[in-house]
């Protein structure tokens, strides 16, 4: 990728009262990418996000957003960031629209037309002139997204964005984030402890544990084209016999009346040919990639509380 990164975290460290909360975290977020920030509760996700948006000072290291350091040119970096930090807390005694006007006044690039456009985009047009105290959590979350994207930020930071959303709302948000990253080239940085959520939403995921970055991996990589092993589930008649036939070809076992083998893409095709030639009826073959949850538990050693 030839484009400059939307954000760079370099050896970001935060110490509070002698305790190291964040320990030399380094990563880069590219334009147009949905980057997941995954970790158990208390691992330091929110602290990292607070440092990215200038709510907390860094003890060491630096964060640059669109080439501007949050330490030395905060206003220039903040102008390129839209964020929801934890819950989208708005002024409850103001209407949704007044809240947006409030934030728009702080950002010269936002016009009145843009506010109306964003309100439509998040689907709040019917209720935007109601006071925020009458909103449901889902509506507040939408208003939060509206204030975060209003000024077309280069980097959108969402801390646990699916909290309080119903399944339809989560899906909508996911589609919207994808569109935003694809069409407008916005880099999206999403934190969550919900693994399955991240798997559906992100291109890459960084895993944080006890303030340390332990892994960064691609989720939508071309994994099944390489020689990497996959899990294949064969739906065959007489699976016990079939297991015997495949003896010595990959790691096979029986699971819920199906034959399950761990093998490469080529080996799976071979196994199918052998079974068919041996006279078995193959009703179906499903491959199962290792879920993010498996990967997550693998790298964190099964620990859930940091």
């Amino acid at each position: 990728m030839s484009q400059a990164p939307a954000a760079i975290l370099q050896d970001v460290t935060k110490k509070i009262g002698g305790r190291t909360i964040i320990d030399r975290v380094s990563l880069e977020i590219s334009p147009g990418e949905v980057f997941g920030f995954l970790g158990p509760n208390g691992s330091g996700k929110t602290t990292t996000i607070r440092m990215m948006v200038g709510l907390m000072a860094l003890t060491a290291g630096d964060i640059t957003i669109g080439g501007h350091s949050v330490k030395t040119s905060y206003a220039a970096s903040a102008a390129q960031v839209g964020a929801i930090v934890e819950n989208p807390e708005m002024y409850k005694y103001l209407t949704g629209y007044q809240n947006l006007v409030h934030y728009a006044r702080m950002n010269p690039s936002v016009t009145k037309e843009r506010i109306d456009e964003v309100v439509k985009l998040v689907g709040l047009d019917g209720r935007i002139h109601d006071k925020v105290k009458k909103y449901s959590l889902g509506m507040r979350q939408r208003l939060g997204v509206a204030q975060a994207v209003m000024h077309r930020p280069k980097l959108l930071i969402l801390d646990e964005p699916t909290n309080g959303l119903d399944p339809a709302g989560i899906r909508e948000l996911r589609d919207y984030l994808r569109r935003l990253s694809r069409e407008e080239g916005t880099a999206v940085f999403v934190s969550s402890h919900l693994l399955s959520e991240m798997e559906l939403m992100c291109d890459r995921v960084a895993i944080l544990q006890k303030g340390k970055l332990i892994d960064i991996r691609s989720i939508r990589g071309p994994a099944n084209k390489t020689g990497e092993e996959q899990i294949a589930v064969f739906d065959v008649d007489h699976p016990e016999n079939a297991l015997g036939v495949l003896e010595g070809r990959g790691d096979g076992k029986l699971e819920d009346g199906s034959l399950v083998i761990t093998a490469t893409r080529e080996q799976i095709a071979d196994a199918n040919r052998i079974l068919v030639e041996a006279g078995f009826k193959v009703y179906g073959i499903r491959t199962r990639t290792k879920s993010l949850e498996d990967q997550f538990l693998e790298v964190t050693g099964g620990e859930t509380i940091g």
Partner: protein
Amino acid sequence: MANFWNLVQNENMKIYRRIRAWIMLGFVALAPIAISIIYIIASGEFDANNWEMMTLETTILYQLITIFTVVKAADSVAGEFSTGTIKLLLIRPWSRSMILLSKFVALLLFAVVQMVLLFVVTWGINALLFGVNSDASGIIPSGSPLAGHSVWGYVGLMYLYLFIAQLMIIAVAFMLSSAFRSGGLAIGLSIFVLFSGSIITGLLSLTDKAWVKYVLFANIDVTSYLNGSTPLPNQDMTLGFSLAVLAGYFIVLNLISWLVFVKRDVAA
């Protein structure tokens, strides 16, 4: 530098879009009318001096205005922390100093709006009920540096001096609000400063120690100079001295507010 007035407008919106601001302004507007009417009912006549009634009502309602402004000042910073809105406020492309300054300016405007309203209402209602008295010498004490001068000058200076006292109490409330992030604590302590000021001044006047005249409480009410006296009779104090002491406190209080607000991590 983008438009700083936008920030002040935001703060104004947060003050005046709440019903409580209008209840406060309603009190300031109606209380003088009520006091004048009660006076007429109680005394059964219309012969009061309009200037006398005006300064009396001003002295009473000034306290109310100060309490209202303190409530808003305490809420201004601490309220944003307790509701969590501070997070979305501080991630904008503005320095924290400017955001704090915009809050302070909006509070000063709120104080000015109330003072102007009080001035207009106390003058208007008493002029209406009692007529404008041409002999105002009765309300200016004979020892006052303004004795023999225009009553407008006297009343105008009285408002100015009360506003200076109010400015100091706002600074105290604002400092407590940003240092402790607790609206209740800021309101309580500021009102303590407001009311205990005269008692503490009374205590301080019992001693002849020189440091006493540098205490905030001894200087906060500069209206005594208007009447030809000094806050502490035993001390060698002038209006210029008190204003200099107040300026010193004002700078220190705001410096604390600013340092705490700008430096502290937002973890709430």
